[in-house]
Structures are given as C-alpha cells and as structure tokens.
C-alpha cells in the first residue's frame, strides 16, 4: 500500500496522516472550500478540493471522491469516522473501483447498520440485548402491551428518528399512552413515520464499549474496554480507558462477548461493540460501530497499540500484528472532547478562533483540528479537538488532563473547555459516579450562565 486517500476531515484526517507518515505511506487529502485553511490539508502529501462547504457537495459526493481517488492513484481509502465510514454502498464501490476500503466488508457494514438486524444477529451470537420490541409498534395499545411485557420504566423511540429527537421515557401505563401520543405525533411531523420502538430503560446506566481488531484469517483480539458515559445531547464528552466501574470478572466477560460476536459475523478490521450496563454490571448490546471511533486514543494510550496501523495492516490482508496474550494495559487514560459550543445550552458556536495555545506536556496528547485564525463553520461536527491524558492510575490521568486543559487557550468562539474542567474537578467524577445522566444530574444544576 503506497498511497491512501483519506475520505474525511479534521482531527481524524490528521491522525491517519500521522500513522501513514510513520509507515512511509503517501496520503491524499480531500477538502471542501470551508476547510481550505484546516491543518489536515497541508499535512497530507497531496490535497484536492472537493467543492462547496455543504457535505452533499463535498465530503458526501461519492462520485467526486472516487474521481479524485483514481486521479491521484490512491490504492486505498481510509474513511475515518462519520461520512462514508459506515456506508455499505461506498465500501462496495471501492471493491468495484479496485480500491481497498480500510474497514469491514460492505455486507457486514449493512448488517450491523440495520438496528433490527444487528440486534437479532447479536441475540443469535449469545449477546445480551436490551429487552425490547424487535419490530416497531403502531399504536398506544401496542406500546402499552409491549411495555408491560418488558416492565416499566421503558423508553419509546421513534423508529425513523435519530439525534435525540423522538426519545421519551415512561414509568407507567398512563405515561406510556401519553408518551406514545406526543412522540408519535412529533415523529410523524418530523420524519413522516409515527411508529415507535419500546425498550427497557436502564437506570443509572453506564456506556461501556469494547474495541476489537479482526483479520482475514479469523483472528480477533480485544483491546479492553472504554467508558464513555459522560455525554450531552447523547454525544460523548469525556471518555476513559478502562472503565472505572467494571470488575475484572465483568471486564473479561464483556470483552470476550465482543470477540465471540465479531467472530460470529465474520468481522474484519477495527470495530467497537457498544453496551449499556446497569448498576449490577449486567451489560446489554446497543450497537456496533464498524469503523475507528473518536475515542480510540484512550485505548491506544493504555495498550500502546496504534489502531490505525492495525487497520492498515489487516486491510492489506496481513495477520494482526499482536496476539491477545501480548495485549497489556498499563495505567489509565482520559479524553476530553473540545466542542465549539455554548457550554450551557450546548448550542453550536461557529466563528473565528482568534487565539489558540495548545500546551505540549508530558502525558498529554492533543488531537487538534483547527489553528489560530481558522473559522469554525456550521457545516460540520462541533468537535474541534481532543485532549487525552494518561497516568499510572485514574487520579493521575485526571490531574494530567486538568493541568493540560488549564494551559489550553482558545478564544473567539465559545467552547466547552470550562465545562470539562468542572466535571473533571468534581467529587462525583473523582468518585467514578460517571453514569449517563451525569451532565443532567451533577453539571447542569451547578452550571452558571
């Protein structure tokens, strides 16, 4: 593999370029007009303009991406996360064009991308799934019937929904009827489909995930777990490896369940099984991400394994570079995502970054998508950087992250930097009370405008 096109932008494009440089692989960046000044464009060996800022006219223009791939002579495409990374049609097109897709097969992407099919497949693989309906319910009566079988409290989720719109909880029959009516009406208006799924609501939940890597020869290894419970708007803010919550016994069980499930579906490349865990450490499969994830650095920091390098290696048809028995975890790592947003309303805050000072410190890793004088536009994800700290234990990693973030300076736009610092310094975080309702429970009540 001599030259790779990176079908992505921002920090993940920079991250992939870094490993490619270390391996002596040439890189091709593609960028929109809005990203002309972004660091990843100049970091790549070659860069090609895609088009206008809107994703449909640039990063999601499949024909244009392949036109550039062929023009540049790229032998492979790394999709990063988002955009085409979990798009089966894109992976299939790669095959047709004779270009290696750095990810799993289109068939596996399609299977795991379908929530109902993924749930059934995982059930068949012996993976516990959140108790719930396998098919959508069409009426309040059906919702109540399902809820009473599952047991309250339940979550009603719009079948056609996403991004947090169309999710309501219900603690009893009356609330279930009410929730179905309001949520279904809203889903009809927004998505043209009012049908709902009913799922058991897991209270005081933890979001736990397991990183796996699999090769063409049927070898699958896990790189332990991450906990990513601290979220706002159902999107992660702070992630750590490993989870401060899981016992070693449960850790072993959850990691092995991911390995077995990956084997059962014939998975190849890096992937992540996402779970929700309750207070008794019962864990349930949520979904599988068939790509590299934003939070992969915390796993890299505790295992010393370069996940991008492994992706490239197995995409070339080679065996995984490391055996499971050689995967050790040392210390602890925590990652904070820096978002261009109002830390109180969580609304986006595009604009020009007038000052940016990124500290270089021992035990601190900065993955930055922006530079000073760069204008953050409303067209893409609000994440502009990730700051990752490691330590011999959780407390050391937390202290290193606080020290690093306090030296970080970013002006001109609103960011969540202070929010992250407030969370890291809180007694609740230090005590490991990192449930998925952390922001609502501990941060928002103390947050001052």
């Amino acid at each position: 593999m001599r030259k790779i096109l990176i079908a992505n932008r921002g920090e993940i494009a920079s991250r992939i370029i870094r490993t490619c440089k270390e391996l002596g692989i040439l890189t091709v960046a593609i960028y929109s007009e809005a990203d002309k000044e972004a660091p990843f464009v100049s970091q790549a060996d070659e860069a090609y303009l895609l088009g206008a800022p809107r994703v449909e006219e640039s990063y999601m223009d499949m024909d244009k991406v392949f036109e550039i791939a062929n023009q540049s002579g790229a032998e492979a495409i790394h999709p990063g996360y988002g955009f085409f990374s979990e798009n089966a049609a894109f992976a299939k097109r790669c095959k047709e064009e004779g270009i290696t897709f750095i990810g799993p097969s289109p068939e596996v992407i399609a299977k795991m991308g379908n929530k109902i099919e993924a749930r059934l497949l995982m059930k068949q693989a012996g993976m516990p799934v959140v108790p719930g309906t396998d098919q959508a319910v069409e009426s309040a009566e059906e919702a109540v019937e399902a809820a009473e079988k599952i047991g309250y409290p339940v979550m009603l989720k719009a079948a056609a929904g996403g991004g947090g719109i169309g999710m309501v909880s219900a603690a009893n029959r009356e609330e279930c009827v009410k929730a179905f009516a309001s949520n279904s009406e809203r889903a009809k208006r927004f998505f043209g489909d009012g049908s709902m799924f009913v799922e058991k609501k897991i209270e005081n939940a933890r979001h736990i995930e397991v990183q796996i890597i699999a090769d063409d020869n049927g070898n699958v290894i896990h790189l332990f777990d991450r906990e990513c419970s601290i979220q706002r708007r159902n999107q992660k803010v702070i992630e750590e490896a490993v989870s401060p919550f899981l016992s070693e016994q449960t850790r072993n069980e959850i990691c092995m369940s991911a390995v077995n499930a990956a084997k059962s579906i014939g998975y190849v490349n890096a992937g992540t099984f996402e779970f929700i865990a309750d207070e008794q450490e019962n864990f349930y499969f949520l979904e599988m991400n068939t790509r590299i994830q934003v939070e992969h650095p915390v796993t890299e920091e505790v295992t010393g394994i370069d996940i991008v390098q492994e992706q490239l290696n197995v995409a070339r048809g080679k065996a995984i570079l490391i055996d499971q028995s050689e995967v050790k975890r040392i210390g602890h790592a925590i990652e904070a995502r820096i978002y261009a947003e109002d830390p109180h309303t969580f609304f986006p805050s595009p604009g020009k970054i007038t000052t940016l000072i990124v500290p270089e410190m021992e035990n601190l890793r900065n993955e930055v998508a922006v530079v000073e004088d760069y204008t953050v536009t409303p067209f893409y994800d609000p994440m502009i950087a990730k700051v990752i700290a490691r330590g011999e234990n959780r407390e050391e990693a937390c202290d290193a992250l606080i020290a690093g973030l306090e030296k970080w300076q970013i002006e001109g736009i609103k960011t969540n930097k202070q929010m992250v610092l407030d969370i890291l310094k809180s007694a609740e975080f230090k005590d490991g009370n990192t449930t998925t309702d952390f922001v609502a429970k501990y941060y928002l009540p103390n947050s001052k405008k």
Partner: protein
Amino acid sequence: MHEIKASMAGNVWKIVVEAGETVEAGQDVVILESMKMEIPISTESKGIVKEIKVEEGSFVNEGDVLITLEA
C-alpha cells in the same frame, strides 16, 4: 405581531407549519440544523402564521426572524 427567531446559526432543515395555520404555544414551527445538531424552534404564544421568512435549506444567523405570527 410576534416574531419567532433563530436561537443559533445554521441551516433551515424543515419548516413544519404553513402560512395561515393556527399554532399553539409550545408548538414546533421550524427545525434548524447546525454542526449536525437539529434544534426544533417552537412558538411561545398561540397565533396564526403570517409570514414564513426563510426557505428550507437557507442559512440563518442567531437572532434572524424565521416566522411572524399574528395574535
């Protein structure tokens, strides 16, 4: 006359009311999209939609008037 304004900069993803329609307080009228976030904009008061000042797909800044309502 009541003006419904954008609470953030972004694109108008969907307009869910029509001119002449009566809307209730708290009803969603427009969905804005910015940085992959969809924000439903709702009306604070009951009224009749007088004018829709934006189009689906258009870009708005925070504070821009999206819709005017007649009491």
